[in-house]
């Protein structure tokens, strides 16, 4: 008779000690990724948790997942405190200048408003090139362009200490083209407000 509560308390205690757990959730976009368990208690493990909305107790040699069920209040609080996803804006410039096109001028105002909304904000200014010329040259060219635009943005009211310039070269074409193709849509600067 007395043994049962003791066993239950022991199980609870052991359960508490058993430690780490993983809750895999759907991505914000609706899909979901996976988390691999590479080691348990220092020993290599070869397991992949790929079921969205699942809970997995860690630290076992054969981690098994079960449906997550309802999220706990702690978990909901954790997710709602997550920073908002960054927002991306594209700016176009009049060929050979640092003057924004007429269409891009209102975007600048949107960027400023978004910066003002975000506590602890930082801003990544990324230059992109088209595929004309060598890839290395385009890395340098797109970085110079980004640095130039950081300068421009700082003169129109965006705090320079928030901004970082990045050159992505021809890695992220807005319009896919063959090599050595001139394209004004690919020659652009993107501003990520984070």
């Amino acid at each position, binding site marked *: 008779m007395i043994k049962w509560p003791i066993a239950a308390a022991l199980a609870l205690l052991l359960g508490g000690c058993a*430690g780490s757990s993983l809750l895999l959730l759907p991505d914000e976009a609706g899909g979901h990724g996976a988390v*691999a368990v590479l080691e*348990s208690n220092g020993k290599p493990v070869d397991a992949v948790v790929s079921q969205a909305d699942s809970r997995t107790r860690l630290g076992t040699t054969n981690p098994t997942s079960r449906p997550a069920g309802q999220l706990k209040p702690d*978990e909901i609080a954790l997710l709602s405190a997550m*920073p908002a996803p960054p927002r991306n804006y594209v700016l176009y410039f009049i060929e050979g200048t640092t003057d924004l096109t007429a269409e891009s001028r209102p975007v600048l105002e949107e960027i400023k408003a978004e910066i003002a909304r975000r506590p*602890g904000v*930082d801003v990544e200014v990324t230059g992109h090139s088209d595929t004309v010329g060598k890839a290395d040259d385009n890395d340098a060219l797109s970085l110079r362009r980004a640095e130039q635009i950081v300068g421009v943005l700082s003169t129109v009211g965006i705090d320079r200490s928030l901004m*970082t310039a990045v050159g992505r070269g021809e*890695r992220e074409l807005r319009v896919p083209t063959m090599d050595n193709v001139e394209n004004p849509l690919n020659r652009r600067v993107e501003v990520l407000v984070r």
Partner: protein
Amino acid sequence: MLGRISTVLGLASLLASPAWAEIARVKSSVGAAAIERGTARLPARPGLQLNPGDRLVTGKDGRISLSFIDNTRFSVGPNSRIAVNEFSYDRTRQSGTFVTQVDRGSLGVVSGHIAKSGKDAMKVRTPNSLLGVRGTRFIVEVPK
């Protein structure tokens, strides 16, 4: 000799300085929430910049949320102790490595470019396991 050593050291720290560039910024915090850097303890105010090796520490009413330069986002729950042991990121190639250690507490993660840049380029360590993040949103919990 001594002069030469200090010059070498000076050079080394100059060369090393890019490695200490900003890796993340605190976006919000509530309650008891600090960033431990070596022996220093900095209040986790919005805008505070993180370095590799920093530890995120919260008390029983504390929370910290932050965004990394590869777009990874963290939400740290109460009673947590979490270290960013390793973070290197090439902004041009959007690739790198990222190792976080959750000693206790809870961590919500939305992974960013690093997790996509290579298999298990982003790892999370708990006292009893090592996880490889393959691009996703998840919570790791380590009860005390």
